[in-house]
């Protein structure tokens, strides 16, 4: 249970970090942020990086700012920052609500928002949030800076659009209007465990009907994503339990669980139905 050998690099600026990454990316170089997924993988020798580029000393990556209608979350912003709302309104409350489901407190003091996105575990709560809200990811390398939409960023289980020499410097979440409602529901067996299934629902109610619904499901497929069929079942309808049930049924029908055992896949369809319904109900009450 001891990590393999690696060379350690501790850049102080983003420029130094991407220069270092450019140098070591082709030689099994990896970025070390919070380390709460990478270091266990190294202890188990599932990950054997030859170089670690530790970005914890890069002060500018600790930036967390609301600007131009977006919440910009720097690469070193830790989960625990979100335990109290970081912005007024529903987005801050949503993030505070979701963060309590991420592992345990001593993990949340180290692990980072952007690290979770770059790791892209299918059961990552922040990946579900990013996919459902339509986050934008900002990636930097010596070759330049590019922004990547959530729909392009998540590519499969632990797979993202990031190139090996790219550093995810920031994620940007849209700050939604004050009348936006949200509901999050996660099912697992013990507090702090990985989600078996989770669902996030976000919508507004205008003139008595649901507007701009977003329904995301995670823990089921290779990566969390929005479920268009569920959203179509909601848009333009008055919120009611039968409408929520129809959307939940649509989500359960649409998903394709990655579990290799067919009995587990069937189970996930059922839990998805319940999780989506409960997220929609929670949103109505929010």
């Amino acid at each position: 249970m001891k990590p393999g050998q690696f060379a350690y690099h501790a850049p102080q600026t983003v420029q130094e970090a991407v220069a270092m990454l450019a140098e070591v990316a082709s030689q099994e170089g990896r970025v070390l942020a919070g380390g709460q997924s990478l270091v266990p993988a190294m202890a188990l020798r599932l990950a054997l990086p030859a170089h670690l580029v530790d970005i914890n000393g890069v002060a500018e990556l600790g930036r967390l700012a609301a600007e131009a209608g977006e919440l910009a979350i720097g690469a070193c912003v830790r989960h625990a920052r979100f335990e109290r709302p970081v912005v007024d309104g529903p987005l801050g409350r949503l993030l505070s609500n979701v963060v309590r489901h991420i592992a345990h407190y001593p993990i949340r003091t180290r692990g980072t928002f952007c690290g979770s996105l770059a790791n892209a575990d299918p059961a990552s709560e922040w990946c579900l949030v990013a996919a459902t809200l339509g986050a934008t990811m900002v990636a930097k390398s010596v070759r330049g800076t590019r922004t990547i939409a959530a729909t392009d960023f998540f590519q499969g289980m632990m797979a993202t659009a990031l190139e090996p020499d790219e550093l995810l410097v920031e994620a940007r979440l849209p700050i939604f209007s004050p009348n936006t409602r949200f509901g999050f529901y996660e099912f697992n067996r013990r507090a702090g465990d990985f989600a078996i299934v989770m669902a996030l629902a976000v919508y507004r109610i205008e003139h008595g009907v649901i507007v701009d619904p977003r329904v995301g499901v995670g823990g089921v497929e290779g990566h969390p994503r929005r479920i268009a069929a569920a959203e179509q079942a909601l848009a333009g309808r008055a919120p009611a339990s039968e409408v929520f049930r129809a959307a939940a049924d649509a989500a359960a029908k649409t998903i394709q669980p990655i579990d290799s055992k067919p009995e587990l896949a069937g189970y996930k369809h059922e839990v998805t139905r319940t999780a989506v319904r409960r997220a929609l109900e929670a949103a109505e009450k929010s």
Partner: protein
Amino acid sequence: MSDNKTDVILKVNGKEYAIRVEPRRTLADALRDQCGLTGTNSGCEHGVCGSCTVIVDGDPVRSCLMFAVQVQGRQIRTIEGLADGDKLHPLQRAFIEHHGLQCGFCTPGFLMLAASVLEREPDINDEDLVEVLSSNLCRCTGYQNIIKAVRAAAAEMRAR
């Protein structure tokens, strides 16, 4: 990479330890093997059990998930620094009084976790306290006595 070692100064419980370690050496192992502070226990060594919990700059962390080279210059607190000389910390006394331990392996981790949380949030509500204590594993007590002990210590610390 025959000699891949780096000089690091660890500040633990107010004292400086000049050590020389490979980058792959975890904080937990460095505390135990290089600093001789064996009160911090290594259990699962991959962040699940919490027995290696220490406090770094006020935050409880899994010391098996940090490398010693990352902690240079930071304030580290371990179980060895919890008592005030011969006078036990209220949490330590409460664990004895409420039978919050049996074999004692998980105890240093629980004490450092609880100490950091009660220092930060003395008026923590019971629901949040139980949620925080779910972070660490204990195979002896069934948790109820640990929760009782931390509640009692929290009340005592608030009364002061």
